[in-house]
C-alpha cells in the first residue's frame, strides 16, 4: 500500500481545485469525516445564520477566520458520504479567484485539522470508495492532462465508462464460453446441450479479434496520450534547425502532455489539428566534434527510433544529393517511417529544380525552401494527414491509451489464442478452461475487479442440471 491511501480512513483532506493564476472564481474541496465540522466552523451564512446546512444546497455567506475577521464572501455546499465525488463527506467552497484569498481560506481549513491533499488523492478516494473502477480513475487523470481534442475525446470515452463497458462485455463473453465448458466438465452424466465445438471455436475467434483490435489500438492510443513524435534529422547543414523553427512558427506551441520527455536537445510541442506533436531537433548532436561525436550519433539514432516519424531533410543544392539520400535511407531502415524533405530549392536553377522534383517524386518527398518559405504550407498539410492518418476515428471506436491496459490485453490475448488452438487440437476441456480463466484474470486486473462465483451462476441459468 502506498502512502497516499494510508490515511484514507481517518484524515480529512483539502486542496484548491481550480488552476493557479487569477480567475473569476476559485474553488476549494474538503473531503473526509470532518468536512462538515470544518466547513461549519469557518462559514457563516449571510441569511438565517442559525440554520443547519442541508446537503446539496448552495449557500451564500462569508468565511470568517479564527480572529473573527471576514476573509471573503463565498458560496459553499455540503455533500453526504456516499453521494459525493470521493464517496466521503465532502464540502466545496467557491470564493473569489485570486491565489492569495484561496490560500488564506485553505490555511484556515488546514488549521482546523485537515491535511493538504496529495495530487490525485480525491480520485484515489473515489476509487477506494468503490465509486469508480480503475479504468475510470485512470481516465480522470487523462482527462485532466488532456491538452488536445483527441486526448480529450479519448479520456471522455473512458470516463463515460465506454472502456469499462467494453472490457466487461469481453469478460462476459469469455465467461459464457467457460460456463459451457465447465458445465460439460462438472456434469458429465447430464444430457445438457452445450454449444458444439465449431461454434465455440468461432466464439473464441471472435473474442480474440475484439481483444486484438483493442490491444492494437494502443499504437494510436499512445500517440493520443503521449503525442506524435517527429524527429527532424539530416546531414550537417541540410537545414534541420531552420525547418524546426519554421514548423514551430506555423503552429500553436503547447506544454508536453507527459512529464519526463524533455531531453538535452531541443524538443518542442505543437498542436497539429488537435493532436499533440513533438518536434525534436537532432542538430547539434551529430555536428559536434571530438569525443562526443560518437555518443551524439547514438543519441540521435535513439531519438529517431523512439519517434513515430522521421523528417529526413536533404540539401537539394548538393550535386550528388540523390545518391546521398539513397545511402542515408539505407541507414534509417527499420527505425520508423521516414518522410524525405528536399530543402534549399531556392538555390536551384529551373533545370535542376525540375530534376530535383523528378527525384522527389520517387521518394514522395516534399520540396521546400526554408529561406523563402516556399512549400512549407504544403509540408504542413502533408504532416497533418500523416499524423491524423495514424489515428482512428474516435466516434466509432475505443482506443487503449494506457500501457498497463495494453499489457494486460496482450496477456489475455495470449491465453485466448492458446485456448483456441487447444480447442482445435482437441485438448481436454480442463486445459481449455485453464487458459480461459487465465484470460479472465488478466481482464479483471484491468478494471480492478475481483473474481467471484459468476461461472456457477451462469451454468445454472443456462442449463437444466441436476439429479
Amino acid at each position, binding site marked *: 500500500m502506498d502512502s497516499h491511501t494510508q490515511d484514507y480512513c481517518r484524515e480529512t483532506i483539502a486542496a484548491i481545485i481550480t488552476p493557479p493564476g487569477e480567475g473569476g472564481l476559485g474553488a476549494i474541496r474538503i473531503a473526509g469525516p470532518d468536512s462538515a465540522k470544518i466547513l461549519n466552523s469557518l462559514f457563516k451564512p449571510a441569511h438565517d445564520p442559525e440554520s443547519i446546512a442541508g446537503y446539496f444546497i448552495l449557500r451564500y455567506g462569508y468565511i470568517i477566520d479564527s480572529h473573527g475577521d471576514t476573509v471573503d464572501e463565498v458560496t459553499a455546499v455540503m455533500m453526504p458520504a456516499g453521494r459525493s465525488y470521493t464517496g466521503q463527506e465532502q464540502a466545496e467552497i467557491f470564493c473569489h479567484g485570486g491565489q492569495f484569498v484561496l490560500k488564506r481560506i485553505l490555511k484556515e481549513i488546514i488549521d482546523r485539522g485537515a491535511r493538504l491533499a496529495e495530487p490525485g488523492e480525491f480520485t484515489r478516494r473515489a476509487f477506494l470508495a468503490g465509486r469508480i473502477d480503475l479504468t475510470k480513475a485512470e481516465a480522470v487523470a487523462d482527462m485532466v492532462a488532456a491538452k488536445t481534442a483527441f486526448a480529450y475525446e479519448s479520456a471522455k470515452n473512458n470516463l463515460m465508462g465506454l472502456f469499462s463497458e467494453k472490457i466487461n462485455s469481453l469478460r462476459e463473453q469469455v465467461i459464457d464460453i467457460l460456463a459451457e465448458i465447465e458445465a460439460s466438465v462438472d456434469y458429465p*452424466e447430464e*444430457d445438457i446441450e452445450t454449444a458444439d465445438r465449431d461454434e465455440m471455436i468461432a466464439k473464441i475467434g471472435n473474442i480474440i479479434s475484439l481483444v486484438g483490435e483493442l490491444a492494437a489500438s494502443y499504437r494510436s492510443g499512445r500517440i493520443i496520450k503521449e503525442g506524435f513524435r517527429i524527429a527532424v534529422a539530416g546531414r550537417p547543414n541540410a537545414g534541420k534547425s531552420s525547418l524546426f523553427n519554421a514548423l514551430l512558427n506555423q503552429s500553436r506551441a503547447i506544454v508536453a502532455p507527459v512529464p519526463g520527455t524533455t531531453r538535452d536537445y531541443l524538443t518542442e510541442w505543437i498542436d497539429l489539428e488537435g493532436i499533440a506533436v513533438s518536434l525534436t531537433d537532432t542538430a547539434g548532436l551529430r555536428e559536434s566534434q571530438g569525443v562526443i561525436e560518437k555518443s551524439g550519433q547514438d543519441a540521435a539514432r535513439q531519438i529517431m527510433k523512439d519517434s513515430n516519424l522521421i523528417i529526413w531533410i536533404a540539401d537539394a543544392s548538393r550535386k550528388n544529393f540523390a545518391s546521398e539520400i539513397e545511402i542515408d535511407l539505407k541507414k534509417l531502415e527499420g527505425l520508423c517511417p521516414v518522410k524525405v524533405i528536399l530543402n534549399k530549392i531556392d538555390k536551384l536553377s529551373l533545370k535542376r529544380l525540375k530534376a530535383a522534383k523528378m527525384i522527389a517524386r520517387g521518394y514522395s518527398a516534399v520540396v521546400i525552401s526554408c529561406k523563402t518559405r516556399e512549400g512549407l504550407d504544403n509540408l504542413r498539410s502533408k504532416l497533418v494527414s500523416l499524423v491524423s492518418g495514424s489515428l482512428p476515428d474516435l466516434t466509432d471506436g475505443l482506443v487503449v491509451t494506457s500501457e498497463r491496459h495494453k499489457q494486460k490485453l496482450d496477456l489475455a490475448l495470449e491465453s485466448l489464442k492458446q485456448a483456441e488452438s487447444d480447442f482445435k487440437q482437441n485438448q481436454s476441456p480442463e486445459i481449455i478452461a485453464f487458459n480461459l480463466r487465465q484470460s479472465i484474470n488478466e481482464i479483471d486486473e484491468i478494471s480492478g475487479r475481483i473474481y467471484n462465483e459468476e461461472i456457477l451462476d451462469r451454468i445454472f441459468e443456462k442449463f437444466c442440471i441436476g439429479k
Partner: protein
Amino acid sequence: MKHSDFDIIVVGGGHAGVEAALAIARMGKTSALLTMDKTKLALMSCNPAIGGLGKSHIVKEIDALGGVMGQAIDATGIQFRKLNLSRGPAVWATRAQADRIGYNKFICDFVAAQSKVTVIEATAGDILTEQGRVSGIRTEDGQTILAPAVIICSGTFLGGLIHIGDKQIPSGRRGEKGAYKLSQSFRSLGFEVGRLKTGTPPRLDGKTIDYSKCEAQPGLEPPPFFSYRSKPREIKQVPCHLTYTTVATKEIILANLKKSAMFSGQIHSRGPRYCPSIEDKIYRFSDKPRQHIFLEPEGNGTDEIYPNGFSTSLPADVQHDAIRTVIGLENVEMTQAGYAIEYDYCPSYQIKPSLETHRLPGLFLAGQINGTSGYEEAAGLGLIAGINAVLYLQNEPAFIPNRAESYLGVMLDDLVSHSTTEPYRMFTSRAEYRLRLREDNARDRMIEYARRYSLIPEDDYRSFEVLQKQTRAAIAMLEKKYIAVSQLDGYAEYFVKRQSISLADILKIPGVEYKYIAKFLDNGDRIDNEILERASVAIKYSGYISKQEREVEKFRRSESQKIPADLPFEKLTGLRNEAREKFARFRPTSLGQASRIEGVTVGDIAALSIHVRKFTAQRS
C-alpha cells in the same frame, strides 16, 4: 475446571460425526458420539452412491488424512466407475454405488472397534457453557455429559420438517424423529439459525421394473477404488440403468404443480439449484422433451431402487402416477414416497475456517449445519472439525488447508467467505487451481498434514515417501530418455522439425497416456505401472502448474497477510457501509479471504489493510 467425561463430544452419527470421532481417536483423544440410533451410523439417507465430480476428490483427501469413507465404500461398493475419462486427469472422478446397508454396517463395526469412541444413544438438547466456553451437552432426557469441546453434526435433524404434498411431518430423516430442543439452544445462545431445503425421490421396487426398455450402465473393470489402502480385488458389479421421462410425465406434473409443497408456497427455504426436484426441472425447462432418470440399485440383498433425478415433494398419489409414465416404470411399485425436507442450519459466517464458532469457543460445527450438502462434503468437514477440536484442546494452531492445495481448503474458504443461499455442493469449477488438485495427487498434497497430526500410521508415511522418491526418479528418467520421432505412430506430426524426442515431451501431447509410452521403455527402465502413471500425470501438468505459479504465489502472499481476530470490524471508519457490514459479518482472518467476500471491492481491501496495519502497530 470440572471433571470432564470425555475429551470431546460429537453430536450426530452421520458422515460428518463419524469422521470427526474417528479422527479424534486417531489423534489419541476420547469422544462421546451421540446418536439417536446406534445402528444407523453413516446412513445414506439420499442416493446410495459415493463420489462424483469434485466429491471424489474430497473422498481421496479424506482418505489421505486417514479417514474411513474411502475404505468403507471400497469394501461395500457394488459398482465402480470413472467419470470424465475423456476430459483430462484433473477432472477424472471416481463414483461408486454402495450397498446402502452394507456401508452402514461397515461403519458401525469400524466405530465399535475403536475403543476411544463411545457411542451413546441420546438426543442432544442443550449446549452447555461455562465462562463463555462450551462445557458439554445436556441430552433431551436430562443427562449431562461434560467435555471442553463439542462438535455438532446435526444433518437434516435440526428442526427437520418433511413435506409430501400438503402433508407436513416433523422428522429428521425418513421416519426418524428430529432434534428440536437443540435448535432452540442455538437460538438462545445467540446464533442466527436459517432454513434450508433438500429433497429425495421415491424408492422403487426393482422387481416391478422392465429393464429391457432401459439402457444398462455397467461398472468399470477393474474397479477403481478410492482408498490407498484398498488392494485390487474382484467384485461382482451390478449395473445401473438409464431411462427417460415422457410427455405424459410432463402433463401429469404440470397439471399437479400446485400440489407440490415447493410450488404451493408451503416451503419458503431455498433448495439446491444443482439438485432440483422433477417438478422444478419440468416447469423451468418446459421446452425440453424429456428428462433422464438413473435407476440405481440400493444394495446386494435388496430390490430397492433409487430413481436418481426424480426428487419430488408432490403428494404420494401424484408421485405414483407420474413415475409410472417413465419408460420401463409403467408397472412400478413405490416402496416409499419422495419428500422434501426443511432443516435448520447456522449460516456459515458464524464459523472460523477451523469450523469453530466465533461466538462460543470450543463449539465446532460440521456438515449440513454449515449449509453444505452431500455425504462427502459432510465427511470432509467432520474430519477437519475433529482434528481442530483436538488442536483446540492442545492449544495449538488450527489445521486450515488452503485453496491452492485441496478441495477441503476450497470448501472451508467458500463457507467462511460467502453467504449460503442454497446448500453448498462441491464442483471442480469452484477450484481456481484445479489442475493442481487432482485425485491422483491427493496423498502428495495431504501427506505432511497426515503425519503432523498422526492421522495415519508411520509405516504408511514411510512407504509413501518411497513411492514419491520413485516417482521423482521416473520423471527424471522420462525426461532423459529420447526416442526417434520416426518410431511414433500417429503423433509424429507434433514434432515435425525434430529428429528425436523425450518421452516426457510425448506425454504432453493431448490424449497421450502412460500406457502409450510404456512400450518405449527397455527392460532396464521398466517401472511399476502405478509409478509410471504418477510420473506421467505430473509431467503432463508441469507446464500449466508452473504457468499458474505466479498466481498461486500472489494468493499465498495475500493469505499470509493475517487480520487479528480482535480487529473491531464494526467500528472501522472510511469503509463503505456494505463493506463494513460484510467484514463484521464474516470476520475474515486474512486479507486474501477478505478479498473473496462477495461484493467487496479492491478499494475496500486497500482500506481494510490500512486498518490492519494501524491496529497491529498500535498493539505492539
